[in-house]
């Protein structure tokens, strides 16, 4: 090992990404909790904290660009830096979706929920698990885990379909539920998108480790 400084900087970069990842994971959890509990304060918190996630993305991107400029990375180093700069875009989008869910909490806060939320929290549990495990796969360069996480996306898609069908029934029975039900359908779709971005991250982890492109 003759590139200790560079290795340290790469390690720091990975830690930064993990930090950003756990911020996003928390944002997802808080956003859906605010929706379930109709907790406007919590929703506002998520919306404020989204700025920090955005700042994090810019910081990591700057570091990636600087390392490419100064270190001319190749092979695995190049794949790692290249993929980190892609993964942070996925994470940033996931943060935005959490922001959107929090905004829905505020939009529908004036009336009680048309029904207690059951499937959306279940769907959120799977999505959060995916995010957590995917960050784990990233740090441990664990491609088997990345594949496993990507497969979990099917379950999230099923929930999204199911939630849509259920809320459609509500709307047909009672048109006064339409505005809230539409918002909840959006919330479900945002979660589905979050899971899709997690799947992207899994693909990038596999490329980072093996150099092979996969598509889930």
């Amino acid at each position, binding site marked *: *090992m*003759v*590139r200790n400084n*560079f290795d340290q900087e790469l390690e720091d970069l990975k830690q930064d990404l993990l930090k950003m990842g756990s911020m996003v994971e928390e944002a997802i959890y808080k956003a859906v909790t605010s929706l379930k509990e109709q907790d406007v304060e919590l929703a506002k918190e998520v919306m404020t904290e989204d700025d920090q996630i955005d700042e994090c993305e810019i910081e990591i991107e700057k570091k990636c660009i600087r390392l490419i400029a100064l270190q*001319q*990375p*190749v*092979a*695995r*180093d*190049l*794949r790692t830096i290249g993929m980190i700069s892609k993964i942070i875009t996925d994470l940033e989008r996931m943060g935005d979706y959490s922001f959107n869910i929090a905004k829905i909490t505020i939009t529908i806060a004036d009336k009680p929920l048309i029904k207690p939320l059951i499937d959306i929290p279940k769907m959120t549990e799977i999505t959060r698990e995916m995010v957590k495990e995917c960050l784990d796969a990233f740090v441990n360069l664990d491609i088997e885990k990345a594949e496993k996480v990507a497969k979990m996306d099917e379950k999230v898609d099923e929930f999204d379909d199911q939630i849509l069908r259920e809320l459609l029934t509500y709307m047909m029975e009672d048109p006064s539920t339409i505005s809230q039900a539409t918002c909840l359908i959006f919330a479900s779709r945002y979660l589905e998108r979050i899971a899709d971005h997690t799947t992207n991250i899994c693909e990038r982890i596999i490329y980072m480790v*093996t*150099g*092979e492109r996969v598509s889930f």
Partner: protein
Amino acid sequence: MLQNSKEKIVIKDLNFFYNDFQALKNIDLKVPAEKITALIGPSGCGKSTFLRTLNRMNDLIDCTKVKGEVLIDGHNIYQKGLDVVELRKQIGMVFQDPNPFPKSIYDNVAYGPKAHGIKNKEVLDQIVEDSLKAAALWDEVKDRLDKSAMDISGGQQQRLCIARALAVNPDILLMDEPTSALDPIATAKIEELIKDLKEDYTIVIVTHSMQQAARVSDYTAFFLLGEVIEHGPTEKIFERPADERTEDYITGRFG
């Protein structure tokens, strides 16, 4: 991996010795025609020795021994009775430090063709002009062809040496760290020139600069302790090398 391009040079089980020291071990390599192949590896890995086996330059060193075959267009250049002068006419070589003759720019380029028997002034003039143009030097020197080659810049001298190599109409160009003595701008010019030349020439370049190998070459071979560890398309070598030792070397974690 190289099936799509024609092979210009095929090296079969090549071994090379300086006395008892084996500098090259069981080299098997195919050099595709009209492409640029870069040889990389740490100092003493055998890449320059290998380059010199391709035009039998090592014949000039005592106590050396070659085993195996180097086929150029299918003919073994180590077969008995081969005309080495003819061989070297087919293979131009450019060295680390620009080494023009202490003669005029014109005479540097005309030297090879003259030595091969061309006397007609008009023909020579044309060869000098064509070679200098091919080496991207013509516009800079066309008004002072009679000036000494020692008075132009290092980068120009190196391009002059390339023009001199091209003047005898070779089809292979060997380059041994051709830009290591040059500044970045002169280096960039030579690199551009190398890329232009591959339309007509098969080029093998030894370089210590991995970035240079990445920038100019189509194929890269990584040498270590006299062996070829990995050989393949340059973008593959630098994006996802197959061998751990290649990875360690190109990412600077070697040794």
